[in-house]
């Protein structure tokens, strides 16, 4: 057993395997499959201050080695989360983080204020990169001033660790990363989904009700890996790698590129046990290569 302990700002992780928001429900959906407490932490569904019905069906299109989604942040709202869902999450001994979204800065702030009251939540992940909502979401994450503005505002009301989740749909992600670091982000996670589109040639209609949607899965891994590598050289705060991680080898690639932790997303749809298998595979890799600690590979790409 290698030592897998790592840290994201004030959050101690017993291992660097987290689950990506919107792909792991509230964790409880996985109770049938494995003991979620084995993971370093879980990041629950995108939460907004007001309840959201999400987008109309269809919300999903399968693509080559990936999928598009247009869920649009369906959730019961932060107050509902606090009253009805949070109590069910108290049973977890591992870290639980909440992914926070909004259409305006005020909404982000209001949502973060509510989460701030929940002791058992280790931190928030500020989603400034959701491509599936009409207002806000990704719009904040694609320009430095607006990204910095949200982060600044939330920083004032949120006391614990704030991770900022970046959009890959930008010319230079290092600029945005530096902007949110400057505004007080404790960590950045990347990437959220790439903006894509699917068409049904037979019906001649877009597959998704929203026409465009967010691309995830192994197809985006090369882009994600490149961005994690770029960003980890551009900022001093820890970088969390996300994007098409299907197995331990993928995860190791992200560590080598500079990620301090990783998130498993779409992989859990195909195999609910994916995150657990990835965790075990990382340990195997370290043992096989005679590394004692996960830190021995983080950022250790040999150039």
């Amino acid at each position, binding site marked *: 057993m290698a030592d897998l302990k790592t840290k994201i700002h004030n959050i101690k992780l017993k291992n660097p395997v987290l689950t990506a928001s919107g792909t*792991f*429900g509230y964790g409880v*959906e*996985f109770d*049938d499959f494995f003991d979620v407490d084995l993971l370093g932490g879980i990041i629950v569904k995108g939460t907004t201050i007001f309840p959201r019905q999400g987008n109309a069906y269809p919300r999903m299109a*399968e693509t080559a080695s990936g*999928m598009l*989604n247009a869920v649009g942040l369906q959730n019961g709202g932060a107050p509902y989360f606090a009253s009805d869902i949070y109590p069910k999450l108290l049973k977890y001994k591992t870290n639980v983080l909440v992914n926070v979204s909004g259409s305006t800065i005020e909404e982000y702030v209001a949502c973060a204020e509510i989460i701030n009251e929940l002791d058992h939540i280790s931190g928030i992940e500020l989603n400034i990169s959701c491509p599936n909502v009409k207002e806000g979401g990704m719009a904040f994450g694609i320009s430095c001033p607006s990204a910095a503005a949200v982060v600044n505002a939330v920083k004032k009301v949120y006391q614990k660790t704030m991770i900022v989740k970046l959009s890959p749909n930008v010319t230079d992600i290092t600029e945005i990363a530096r902007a949110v670091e400057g505004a007080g982000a404790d960590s950045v996670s990347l990437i959220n989904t790439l903006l894509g589109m699917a068409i049904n040639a037979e019906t001649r209609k877009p597959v998704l009700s929203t026409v465009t949607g967010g691309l995830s*899965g192994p197809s985006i891994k090369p882009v994600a890996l490149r961005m994690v590598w770029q960003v980890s050289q551009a900022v001093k705060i820890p970088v969390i790698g996300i994007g098409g991680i299907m197995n331990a080898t993928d995860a190791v690639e992200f560590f080598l590129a500079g990620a301090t932790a990783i998130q498993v997303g779409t992989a859990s*749809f195909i195999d609910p046990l994916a995150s657990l298998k990835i965790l075990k595979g990382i340990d195997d890799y370290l043992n096989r290569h005679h590394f004692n600690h996960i830190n021995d590979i983080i950022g250790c790409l040999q150039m």
Partner: protein
Amino acid sequence: MRKSVQDLKVVSNLRLNDDQHILHLQASNQLEYIHPGQFANILVDQSKNVFLRRPFSFYSVDYQNNIVSFLIKGIGEGTRTLLNAGVDSVLDVLFPLGNGFTLPEPEEKVLLVGGGSGVAPLLHLAQVLSKNSNKIHMLVGARSVSDLVEMDNYKRYANLHTTTEDGSHGEKGFVTDHSIFSEGMTEFSRIYTCGPDPMMKAVAAKARVKSVFCEVSLENSMACGFGVCLCCVVQTIHGHKCVCTEGPVFNINQLKWQI
């Protein structure tokens, strides 16, 4: 039963016609109870272009031999790859998923209406209801007699009625043109239906008019099948609900269908 991912062995792959097969899959452990209307999400690992699992309703369950079967219609690369599954090959199956049909009280007289490959969950339902001493009528619609498969199997559990669009078997026309709807609708205390959306809506409309209990099994497109992606929603009177967890079976009164 708890949801799990299991390796099931293909013990037979029975070709019914050009594009429909029945796959019999055997579990290595004792099967736990699977409710009629529940489904499984099957990994298609021998195909380049299929990324996500593919959902299929249980067609029948044999607890003695730990064999489940699926009636699969080839419509795209995923299903067609499964139709080629070799005997003794192994499929990675996530099950059981979804809610399933509400069972009637014993002795109730029920009508099962199926069309296309949508007929699959109705056989499993009929198997269970027949043990519940329900009186079961089953109406199956198809384009032509060649699309009507497994009739003998249905007859073991139900009084069988058929329609074909070309009149080659049973009454001519669509399922909902069948005389059973004009004659004896109210003798049925429950209607269960599965098939193409327009068919289910037409059946639902008939049921609503006569205020007969009616459940439909939906086939929305799914990414996960166990309630975490929120892709498979349907509009209900209580807002968006996931077909994979709060369905696939819905009472028509829950749905915001224009019927």
